[in-house]
């Protein structure tokens, strides 16, 4: 049985575990899965606990959240250096900040210095911040990869036992960033050079070392391709007949997308 935390205990809180707590607490860093019969003594002010929260928790929650009700929030308990449970209220601001860091890391790669800065601000260890951010990164990438619906996302996050505002924040974070994250993920696919642009020039060859007085029209083409971020340029040439042939063939390719067959496939595979 854990003693009820006192005011003085809320010094140097440590992130221990996110989840529901019960008598079946398995120790630091473990996530416990309680069923309702165990939740009698759950310290979490969570939906499933039938308000049997320690009064101190409720007061603390109320003070931080500004409301005195058994509403729920992300309260994490751990054992500090004094062997007494501490709590860290992961507020919306903190999660929002972690979310911003997570998205930035997805765009530009991770930067360990950021962890240290945030850790200092929140008065926790930088490992804590790192785990939090990495958890969010994983949540965002998996959700974006699978392109899950809003409802599915909400259901997935719900089991973590966060507050409603926090869930809304996470959902918004997902919806705001999913398009960009999917673009970043698409760059990881097996890659062929892709078309970037094309320049052309009409030339007429008038003479060469082996034959004078020519009139030989040709089209010079500069093809710009992208691969893995590098640009590759190819200079090519073709004659007028082949140019017309190219145009005809590629127009047929474009027409193909409009045929019934392709439309049916696009409509039905979703």
């Amino acid at each position, binding site marked *: 049985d854990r003693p009820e935390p006192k005011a003085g205990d809320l010094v140097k809180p440590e992130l221990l575990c996110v989840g529901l707590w019960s008598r079946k607490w398995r120790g630091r860093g473990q996530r416990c899965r309680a069923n309702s019969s165990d939740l009698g003594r759950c310290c979490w002010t969570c939906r499933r606990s039938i308000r049997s929260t320690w009064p101190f928790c409720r007061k603390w929650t109320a003070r931080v959240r500004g409301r005195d009700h058994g509403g729920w929030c992300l309260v994490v308990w751990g054992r500090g250096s004094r062997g007494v449970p501490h709590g860290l209220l992961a507020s919306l601001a903190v999660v929002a900040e972690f979310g911003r860091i997570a998205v930035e890391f997805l765009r530009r790669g991770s930067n360990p210095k950021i962890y240290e800065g945030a850790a200092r601000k929140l008065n926790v260890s930088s490992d804590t911040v790192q785990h939090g951010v990495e958890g969010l990164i994983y949540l965002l990438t998996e959700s974006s990869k699978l392109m899950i619906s809003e409802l599915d996302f909400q259901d997935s996050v719900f089991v973590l036992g966060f507050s409603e505002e926090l869930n809304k924040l996470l959902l918004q974070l997902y919806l705001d960033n999913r398009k960009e994250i999917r673009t970043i993920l698409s760059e990881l696919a097996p890659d062929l050079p892709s078309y970037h642009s094309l320049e*052309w020039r009409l030339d007429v060859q008038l003479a060469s070392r082996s034959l004078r007085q020519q009139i030989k029209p040709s089209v010079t083409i500069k093809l710009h391709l992208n691969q893995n971020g590098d640009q590759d340029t190819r200079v090519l040439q073709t004659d007028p007949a082949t140019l017309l042939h190219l145009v005809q063939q590629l127009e047929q390719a474009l027409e193909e997308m409009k045929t019934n067959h392709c439309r049916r496939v696009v409509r039905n595979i979703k």
Partner: protein
Amino acid sequence: MELSEYVQKGFQMLADPGSFDSNAFTLLLRAAFQSLLDAQADEAVLDHPDLKHIDPVVLKHCHTAAATYILEAGKQRADKSTLSTYLEDCKFDRERIEVFCTEYQNNKNSLEILLGSIGRSLPHITDVSWRLEYQIKTNQLHKMYRPAYLVTLNVENTDSRSHPEISFSCNIEQLQDLVGKLKDASKSLERATQL
């Protein structure tokens, strides 16, 4: 047209009815054109029974001289009067000049094509093939559901005889951009030919 002494000497020998009778002259001339224009031609081109009586050294000299002259004439796009003038200078009689000019006329187009194809140029596009696909998912990204094209340009290099290919992928908008630009080029070409 500047031609070497070697060529001139060869032609002078060709002009001489004593060394080459009419039949031999025509045969040698045809052999010269054949060596230049026929891809399968080899030394056997001079192995004709009616040429056996002529000294092989003389035969080769005249054959070389004729071939050299033909190439130079082709390069400079010589007309009948230029040819006649030079051949007269080499003491060709009227009849032989006529035979030469007729043979030249018959082979002129092939000669010009051959000469025009010699030389360096940029890699030349000969054909295009395309593939339309519908992307469903990758291991990094599910539910992609977008069409994509894979375009391959067949390219020929004149010197190395290699046939590299250029392949690239594009989406519908990019392909439309590509086709649009190529159509602009072909329309400009049409307009230029009408000037």
